[in-house]
């Protein structure tokens, strides 16, 4: 597509990182969210949670310092920051479902204007699908941010009135950060809060499957 420049995956992650408050307990999902740890603003400490039982993950391990008993939910060897702790998987998800985590940042196939999330299965795809921790995390976390491209590769909106992909959770998404904009899910629908450089509200509306307010 010969369109205007959109934010890169790293730039989306960097924009989402600015949504995280200092001292927050945060879970990062697969995909773009997993890049966020590398883009925290200076002076901010965030305690990253991993559903295999870690609070306080630091940067990824460098070659030579990997310990394969210390991995994140994507199997990547990580490090710890001071104040970290270990616990078993049931307590890790007690934290997700029980509303103890401040923020979760998840990837998505579709988000509806009411904040319904679809991120675990593509309709018609072969195989069993893969839920992982997404349903628990989406259902319980105080604030859910979705990071994704604004449209599919063939230009279809991923922000829609009603999800057509298999649902992960009803009405759970609070904020959507894309390569074009930042949107908040409100009781009155989607509110456009920020635009990627060079993009207008009208252009973003054109690529969104639900009405936006400004």
């Amino acid at each position: 597509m010969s369109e205007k420049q959109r934010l890169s995956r790293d730039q989306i992650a960097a924009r989402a990182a600015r949504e995280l408050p200092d001292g927050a307990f945060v879970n990062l999902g697969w995909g773009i969210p997993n890049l966020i740890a590398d883009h925290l603003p200076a002076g901010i400490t965030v305690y990253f949670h991993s559903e295999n039982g870690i609070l306080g993950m630091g940067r990824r391990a460098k070659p030579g310092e990997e310990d394969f008993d210390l991995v994140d939910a994507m199997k990547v060897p990580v490090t710890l920051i001071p104040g970290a702790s270990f616990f078993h998987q049931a307590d890790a998800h007690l934290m997700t479902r029980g509303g103890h985590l401040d923020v979760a940042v998840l990837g998505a196939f579709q988000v509806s204007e009411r904040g319904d999330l679809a991120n675990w299965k593509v309709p018609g795809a072969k195989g069993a699908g893969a839920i992982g921790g997404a349903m628990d995390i989406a259902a319980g976390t105080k604030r859910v941010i979705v990071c994704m491209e604004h449209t599919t590769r063939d230009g279809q909106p991923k922000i829609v009135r009603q999800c057509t992909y298999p649902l992960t959770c009803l009405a759970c998404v609070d904020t959507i950060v894309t390569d074009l904009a930042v949107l908040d899910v409100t009781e009155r629908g989607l509110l456009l809060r920020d635009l990627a450089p060079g993009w207008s509200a009208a252009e973003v509306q054109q690529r969104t499957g639900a009405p936006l307010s400004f």
Partner: protein
Amino acid sequence: MKSKICVTLDVAVDSISDGARIMFGGFGGSGFPNNLIQALVRRGTKELTAISNNCGTRDGELSPLFKSGQIRHIIAAFPGPHSFAFQERHAAGEVTIELVPQGILCERMRAAAAGLLGFYTTVGVATEVAAGKEERVINGQRCILEMPIHADFAFIKADKSDGLGNLTYRLAARNFNPIMAMAAATTIAEVEEVVPVGAIDPEVVVTPAIFVHRVVVAKGIRYV
């Protein structure tokens, strides 16, 4: 008192018979009882129901039991992109799967461990997971009824055991292991080292010996 310490891996799995329901610990390549899994392949026990986070990774974790055709049904949260042996059997209709949200998988096992007969949760409401489950409204929230997951055996991986079966774990290799140890009727732990009773500080025991029935020393096999 009969010792829980088994001389070999094959002895540790010698009471498992066809049709058994077995929980397998491990997540993200860490904390898998890979030696016990190999012993079960040697034993050849069939018609197994497996309960585990994922469905094997390349040649490791549960994959040998899918290759050998020993697993008939699995309850899992995340089959995994590299669960090739599972994917093949599943596509051929030789293995069935119940896909469960990961935290609900944990909690259903914890319910079994705790003697609870079920619980209501908002997780999975209005999704494929809710199919066939009782739904009600509590305090204005839609929720579904989830039932306990029991097992005949848990295969777990711990770091140290004392002679009684008090267990410690290493870093994030803990993951599902303590929950499965509590939930199964018989728990078999493969450990890096057995130390004398009293050598583990009671304050650092993660899985108390009451949950552990068999212990076998085996140096961890890791599939990266």
